[in-house]
């Protein structure tokens, strides 16, 4: 039983505020990812939950206990660092078991737990080695084993995969996810990689400038971004944005481009209102001319991504891109038509950046 609740968290270095009044509640067993650009306060938030940073104001509870002023060792949390933070002067086995030995747990009890954890992470052959004789991926597994063996109430991961190469990163990502399915320990995972967040999280907390920009499942974040910032941050290739003015019949017009919107999704839009449209390249594809929401452009560049291609076009002096599988027959200066389904269009307030969906 280890839900986490953070109430009115404030953190500032001197007069410089990093986190301003953050409220967050994480239910038991959930895998939550803190996502955001560097400097958004996600690592600071994690370190405050760990107890490595003092909280300037507010209250942190883990499993119903107020841990705000407890030292890190007494919070029942375990952390995996980006730099692995293995103890260089100890063997792998000593690294993993240090915490248990320190608590005075008998050797007879430690040995089977070590064996089990080493087995699970494939570390059995390396137990006698020093950390510096391991590869990066192995070192990160040792760091995970060190966290797991303590059977903590909460796992904290601080960008644990950033120092690994792309292939290994994907592999360990899957392993971490599997580990969570098996152990069901409440987990907070910090990353700046949106793809990593989308694939691994039960729920994403997207942060910006020390505030929560949006909180939700990967699907919610992707399908219904709460703001232009979220829409821009999530998804590759990046979203196209288009300034437009509303006309009668729920049509947004930008020059020669007319996009019909879903009246049920955006009931509040009035003719004459200025809006900013968000069109995901992946939601658009080639079409016949004259179809609803069709856009006509000139091909500037085709980027081959293997199974599909990103086509960058020029539409009335602006760059717009879309993704299609039928990219191989396109070449520079071709005129193309592509369209988006009306329920895939995002609309934002051009001043506040907030989504105009619903309400």
């Amino acid at each position, binding site marked *: 039983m280890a839900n986490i609740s953070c109430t009115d968290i404030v953190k500032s270095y001197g007069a410089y505020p990093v986190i301003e009044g953050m409220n967050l509640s994480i239910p038991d067993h959930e895998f939550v990812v803190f996502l955001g650009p560097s400097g958004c306060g996600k690592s600071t938030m994690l370190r405050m939950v*760990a*107890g490595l940073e003092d909280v300037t104001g507010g209250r942190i509870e883990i499993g119903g206990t107020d841990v705000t002023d407890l*030292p890190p060792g007494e919070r029942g949390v*375990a*952390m995996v660092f*980006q*730099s692995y933070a293995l*103890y260089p002067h100890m063997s792998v086995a000593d690294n993993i078991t240090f*915490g248990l030995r320190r608590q005075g747990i008998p050797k007879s009890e430690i040995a089977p737990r070590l064996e089990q954890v080493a087995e699970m992470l494939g570390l059995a052959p390396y137990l006698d080695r020093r950390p510096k004789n391991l590869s990066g991926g192995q070192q990160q597994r040792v760091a995970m084993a060190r966290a797991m063996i303590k059977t903590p109430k909460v796992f904290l991961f601080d960008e644990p995969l950033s120092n690994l190469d792309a292939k290994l990163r994907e592999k360990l990502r899957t392993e971490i996810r599997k580990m969570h399915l098996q152990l069901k320990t409440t987990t907070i995972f910090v990353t700046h990689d949106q793809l990593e967040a989308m694939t691994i999280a039960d729920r994403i907390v997207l942060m910006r400038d020390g505030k929560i920009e949006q909180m939700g499942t990967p699907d919610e974040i992707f399908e219904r971004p709460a703001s232009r910032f979220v829409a821009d941050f999530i998804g590759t290739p990046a979203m196209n944005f288009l300034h437009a003015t509303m006309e009668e019949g729920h049509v947004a017009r930008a020059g020669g481009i007319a996009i019909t919107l879903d009246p049920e999704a955006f009931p509040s839009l009035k003719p004459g209102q200025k809006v900013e449209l968000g069109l995901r390249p992946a939601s658009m594809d080639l079409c016949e001319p004259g179809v609803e929401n069709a856009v006509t452009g000139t091909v500037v560049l085709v980027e081959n991504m293997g199974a599909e291609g990103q086509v960058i076009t020029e539409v009335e002096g602006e760059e717009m891109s879309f993704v299609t599988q039928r990219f191989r027959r396109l070449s520079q200066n071709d005129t193309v038509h592509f369209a988006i389904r009306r329920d895939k269009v995002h609309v934002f307030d051009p001043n506040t950046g907030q989504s105009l969906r619903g309400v």
Partner: protein
Amino acid sequence: MGRLISVTLTRALLALLIVVALGPILWTVLGAFKELRDIVTPVPKLLFSPTLENFATILRNPTIRDGLLHSVIVVSASVIIGAALGIPAAYTLARHARNWGDDVQFFVLSLRFMPPVAIAIPFIVIYLDLGIYDTLFGLILVYLITTISTVIWLSVPAFERVPLNIEEAAAMEGCSPFEIFWRFALPVASPSLFGALVFTFVLVWNELLLALTLAAQNATLPVVAASITSLGKEVPWGVINAATVLLVVPPLVFIGLLMGLLNTSVQSGRK
């Protein structure tokens, strides 16, 4: 051809540099094994019948023997105390002093700006008044200024190079600040710390002015060596050379270590 000449010239220049670096010392070592008549020659002699007489003379001489003993006691005591007090202080300055750490470090460093004579002059009077003039205790006490400040000065960067995450990981496992220092920071930083202690040792072993002013009968080896200018009528160059060799050997033992220390600090200094 021109290239051959320039290569030969550079080689010769480099060889000359090595001779300039090592020659004086080797010449002294040679001199230590010479009899006086082989030294006092108009043409320097490279070939001679070596003698151990000079070393026998200095080792038989009670003043020099005492000087050696005093040096060993004073230097080891002041370095050990300096390490015991300075290393924990350096760790705290590196890790637990956010706002005032710089000021303390500047104070420690400013002690190294202090001209030794400015310490020696007042201390001689104070020591005379307190009755600890010419005691080993007095020398150890005044050397603590050098050892503690040097140990702190060199150990703070050594501790700063210990990855902070390692200490945080230890804190996550429930270690107290002292445990983190003792079981993690200290072992991880120990190679650089050892270098710092060696440097401190060399500084104190080589010190002359304070020992010269604050001690008379109980002086250290550099003072005794500095005072051998004549034992009898002629300048005993052979004996002086032998005493120099005796003085030089302990610091030179650590040259490999100094090299290693230099390599690590240079590399981590610029990432």
